[in-house]
Each structure stands twice: as structure tokens, then as C-alpha cells.
């Protein structure tokens, strides 16, 4: 994928930039932020000790920072997230790992009822981060492949981020940890070891609420986030030979949405496709489409197209999962159709 996912366009390369995987970038953010701020701690199932979590994102943290700051919890998502609420109210900055994003539903009350409403109700600030390893395409079945972001983007009081590059994996996690609000950080499992990119060293932050153009173009805009940014770039590449110039906007933050970046690209190309792996119905793509249909209506030259997961649970079997998910081929077909409109 060209040009470090557009990262080079937006950030000065520090001299200590290194090429890291997406997963390494996450771990690095944890090391840096825990080092920087004693109030930062990590908790969740199996995150501690030598083990370092189901995906090893927290590996090495306990050795460096001790068990006090890297806490193994029992299987009790509702209450360990509730505990994070209380810790955060007292000034700590817990980073809670859900073993898979799928299990975030088990903590739902602690997130959407307590954390999301507490500042508004005058209870206090709840500066935690939930790390939620999400997305499928890796044959993990209906309970280890989910993309549940829409539930939380709908819920007032939360912030939601979804990095697509190693630089953002680090920068958005650091920003989420420093943010004074509850932030859900959807990390894309399929990207963990499949992509590498330059990552600035030290305490580096990607601003929450800012989308990024990953590929400038003039004919059709595709708006995506997470893994689908890469699928989209692939599709853009496939149509480029036929002279279709695709602009790819990576949302990066899902709540709050970068509405001006969305409206700007929609106005520029007049043709918009929105792609995400989560179920299309009442997904984040619906919000983006509705936003454009209300605020950039006059600039539209074609229907707004959404490509998302089907309205089924995520199926396990490879042919079914491929039918379920957005793929480069599906995006390519939609781009071609829209370019011809």
C-alpha cells in the first residue's frame, strides 16, 4: 500500500521513526503512556504476567511495570469495566482490554449507562480506554469477528476511534489514553501482523476527531475505516488503470465524526461510497450517508452507496464469510458503477 497509508502526508517523520506492525504500535503506545503517566494501568482477562493477552498486545508490560499496573481480571466484563469507571473517577486512566470486541456486549451497562452519562450528570470525568480487538475475515466465527462500533457511536457521551495504520494505532491509542472521556478503541485484528508502517517514536498522538485522506482523487470518494481502508485502497488501485481516480477518506475517529472532512470530499467528487465490515443496517455508514444527503445534497452527482456486512451474524465458513464481508472486488464493482453513473 502506497506511501505509508498517507501517513507521510500528515505527520513529520521524527528521526526515530521505525517500521512497526500495527500490533507492535499498540504495544508501544501502552509502554510509552504507562511510562509517561503513573495513573495509566492496564486490566482485563489474561493481560498480565508473562502471557500478555490473547493477542500479546500487553506482553512485556507486567515485567516492566509490575502486577500492580497490569491487572489480570476474572471473566466479569460488566464489573471490571464498572471498576474501571470507579478508578477513572478517582483520577486513574485504566486501559481495559476486551479479549475480543465481541465480548464488549457483556460490559454494556458499565459503558453506555454509567461511563457515557457520568460527566453530563455531574458525576465526574471517566477517562478510560477500552481496547476492543474487532473485525473478521480470519475465520473466527460469529463470536470472534464482530464490529460492534455502531452501538457506541449511537450512544451519547462516548468517543470511538478505529485506526487503520500503525502510526494511528499508536497515535490514537495515546490520544485516547490522554483524553478525559471514555474512549472505545477498536483495533482491527486482521491488521495486527499483516501491515507495517512508519511509526514515530516517543510520545506521539493522533488527534481524535480528524479524518485523513489516504489517497487523493477526483472521480469517486470512498469513505472507510479500519481494515476496510486497505481493502478500499486495493480497489482504488484496481480501477486506477482504467482512469478512475478514487479519493479514499479514512475516518479514523467514528465519534465525533469529522463532518467537515466528510462533506469536503463529498462536495469534491459528488459521488460517495461508504464501506465498513460492520452490518450495514443502521451502521456508521448510514450516519455518514445521511449526513451527506442532508448537508451536501446539492453537490451530489449520484446515489450514495453503502457497502457493509450483511444483515446476518458473521458466518464462519470461508465462502459464507466472504459473501458476508466487503471485499476489494465488491468495492471495485461499486466504484465502477458509480463512476459510470
Amino acid at each position: 500500500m502506497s506511501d505509508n497509508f498517507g501517513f507521510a502526508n500528515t505527520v513529520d517523520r521524527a528521526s526515530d521513526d521505525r517500521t512497526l506492525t500495527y500490533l507492535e504500535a499498540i504495544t508501544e503506545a501502552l509502554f510509552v503512556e504507562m511510562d509517561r503517566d503513573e495513573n495509566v494501568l492496564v486490566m482485563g482477562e489474561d493481560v498480565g504476567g508473562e502471557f500478555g493477552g490473547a493477542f500479546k498486545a500487553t506482553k512485556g508490560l507486567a515485567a516492566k511495570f509490575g502486577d500492580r499496573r497490569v491487572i489480570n481480571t476474572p471473566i466479569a466484563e460488566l464489573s471490571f469495566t464498572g471498576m474501571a469507571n470507579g478508578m477513572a473517577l478517582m483520577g486513574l486512566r485504566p486501559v481495559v482490554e476486551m479479549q475480543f470486541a465481541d465480548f464488549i456486549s457483556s460490559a454494556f451497562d458499565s459503558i453506555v449507562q454509567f461511563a457515557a452519562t457520568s460527566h453530563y450528570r455531574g458525576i465526574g470525568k471517566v477517562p478510560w480506554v477500552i481496547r476492543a480487538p474487532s473485525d473478521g475475515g480470519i475465520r473466527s466465527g460469529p463470536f470472534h469477528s464482530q464490529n460492534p462500533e455502531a452501538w457506541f457511536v449511537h450512544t451519547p457521551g462516548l468517543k470511538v476511534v478505529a485506526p487503520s495504520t500503525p502510526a494511528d494505532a499508536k497515535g490514537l491509542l495515546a490520544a485516547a489514553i490522554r483524553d478525559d472521556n471514555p474512549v472505545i478503541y477498536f483495533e482491527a485484528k486482521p491488521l495486527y501482523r499483516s501491515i507495517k508502517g512508519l511509526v514515530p517514536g516517543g510520545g506521539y498522538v493522533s488527534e481524535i476527531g480528524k479524518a485523513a485522506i489516504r489517497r487523493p482523487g477526483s472521480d469517486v470518494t470512498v469513505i472507510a475505516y479500519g481494515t476496510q481502508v486497505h481493502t478500499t485502497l486495493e480497489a482504488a488501485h484496481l480501477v486506477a488503470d482504467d482512469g478512475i481516480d478514487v479519493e479514499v477518506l479514512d475516518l479514523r475517529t467514528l465519534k465525533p465524526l469529522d463532518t467537515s472532512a466528510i462533506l469536503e470530499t463529498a462536495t469534491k467528487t459528488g459521488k460517495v461510497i461508504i464501506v465498513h465490515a460492520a452490518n450495514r443496517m443502521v451502521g456508521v455508514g448510514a450516519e455518514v450517508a445521511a449526513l451527506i444527503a442532508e448537508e451536501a445534497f446539492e453537490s451530489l452527482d449520484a446515489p450514495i452507496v453503502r457497502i457493509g456486512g450483511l444483515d446476518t451474524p458473521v458466518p464462519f465458513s470461508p465462502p459464507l464469510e466472504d459473501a458476508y464481508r466487503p471485499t476489494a472486488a465488491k468495492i471495485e464493482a461499486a466504484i465502477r458503477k458509480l463512476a459510470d453513473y
Partner: protein
Amino acid sequence: MAVVANGATVRVDSISMNETTRRTAYRWMTLTRTFDETMVAMWKQGRGIGGTFSERGHEAVSVGAGLALGPDDVVAPMHRDLGTYLLRGMAPERIFGNLLGREMGVSAGRDSNLHGLGDLDLNIIGFISHIPQAIPTALGAAMAFRYRDESRVAMTFVGDGGSCSGAFHESLNMAALYNAPFVLIIENNQYAYSTPLSQQMKVADIAGRLPGYGLSAVTVDGNDVEAVYDAAAKAVERARSGGGPSVIEARTMRMLGHAIHDGAEYVPEALLTEWQKRDPVLTFRARLIESGVPEADLAALDEQAAVEIAEAVRVAEAAPMPDPASVGQRVYA
């Protein structure tokens, strides 16, 4: 002080109230009762907004437990713990302001009735409706104290109803596991809304289950402020000195409906009559007099409460509503 631990009555070292504490307890109990009666009357007169909850009958619990805390300790009271809010220094007019949706109310009109009474400057975590969210939240506060090696304790409350819910178990298991400086008061008032204990659990001894988690758990007379205080003070002391979490089941009775609109016809008359004899404010008042406190002193406290509450209502009713243009403010920190 006799407490019932794990089903058997045992004697433990008593942390008795001294004379000053007893007078203080009475002051908060009579203030709480006065607040509550005034509130109920206002709502019956149509001067309320939305619903509200009476804590009548729970004064010994909210005051006895609350008084056992030090100023740096944190408490997360529930919807019937008015006394705890008051004795921690939450001004009555701010609470009336909350009930009436005023800008000067504790939540600035965002939250309703006795929810959302949070003020971290007073070390109070406000109530959330979803039962029993207060438990993991307060446990988290306790974990923060442990994390920072602070000599502070976190206390919270749950009903008999809330004790049937999952977070009760998850949190108590973790409290024991992490040896958190945490105290949970179970306010067993025999009903969850219309549902009596017998329709909530087969064995109505909640505390009896808890030693199996590795927790200290006792049952006390929830209408006896000294008994509640004694058990709570010991639990707080244990937590503060690294001895880990405790649970205190305070047995009491909800003397009015679940919320203001509820006539509670489902509660047998005889049960109320019996518990009326054990009214926590009146029995404590009588005990104080018996022990030599001049009735005039108590009457003065009653009078003071009446004046304070009347003034609080006046201030709150006169206070302005929030500016509708501010509705989107405060969502994020």
C-alpha cells in the same frame, strides 16, 4: 454489640458511638426525616417534578454507615440514602434543586430525583439507576486507593433487589480477590418494588452466602443506628488497615411505597405496623432521652432541621431552571 455472622450470633469488639457522635447521628437522622417528609408532602401537593423516592425507615442505615467514614473516604449511596448525602455536606437546597430540575441542583438539571447526586469534592459518587452499578464503581474507587497506596476506603449500598443481580457477585468476588478497601452495605428492606424477599431468593440470608467468597459479612439491625455504625466503623477500620472488604446486611423495612406514586397496597398492613414500632428515628430519640440527653436538645435539633429544610425548599423553588441553550454542554469533559 451483637451481630449475626454467617448465620450465628457472635460477639465482636464494639466500636460504640460516643456522646458527641450520638448527637451528631440524631441531628442527621432528624434532618433526613424532615427532608423526606417535606419532599413527600410537596410531591403530594403537586409541587414536584417527575417522581422521587422516600427513604422513610432507612435513616439508621444511611446515617449510621455514612458516619463511619472519614472525610477522605468515598461513598456511593443509592436512592434511599439521603442521610449519607446530607451528612457528607451536600446542602439540602442543592438536593431539592436536583429534584426540581434547577440549574443550581447537584446535576444542573441533567439527572432526576435522587439519582445523579454526585460531587467528588464531597467524595460522593452519584447514583446511577441501573442496579447495582454502584457496586463495581465503588469497588473501582477502592482499587484506585489500593493502587496509589492511599489510606482511603470506598463504601457503597445495594438493596435486597440489587443483590440478585450479576454485578453483585462479580464485584464481591473481585473485592475479595484483590483485598480491596471496600465496604458494601446491603439495605435489606424486604421489598424490591412490589416484590417481597420470598419472591427474590429462596434463602433470605444474603450475608450468609458471602464468607464463601473470602469476605467478612455480618447482619445487623438496620433500624438501630448504633448497630449499623458499629458494624460499619469496624468494616471501615478493617478496610483501612489492609484487612480487606466487608459486607454488612442491614435488615430494615421500606415504610412507604417504592416511589412517590406507589401506594404499596401489596405490603401487608401488619408488617408496617410492626416495623412502625421500630421506627429508627423515634426509637433512637427515645434511647437518647433514656440515656440522659435532655429532650430539649433533641427538640432543638428537630427545630433546626425544620428551619433548614424550609429554607432549602424556598431557595430551590425560587431558583431558575437551566438555560435550554445549555442542553448540549457537559457531555464531554
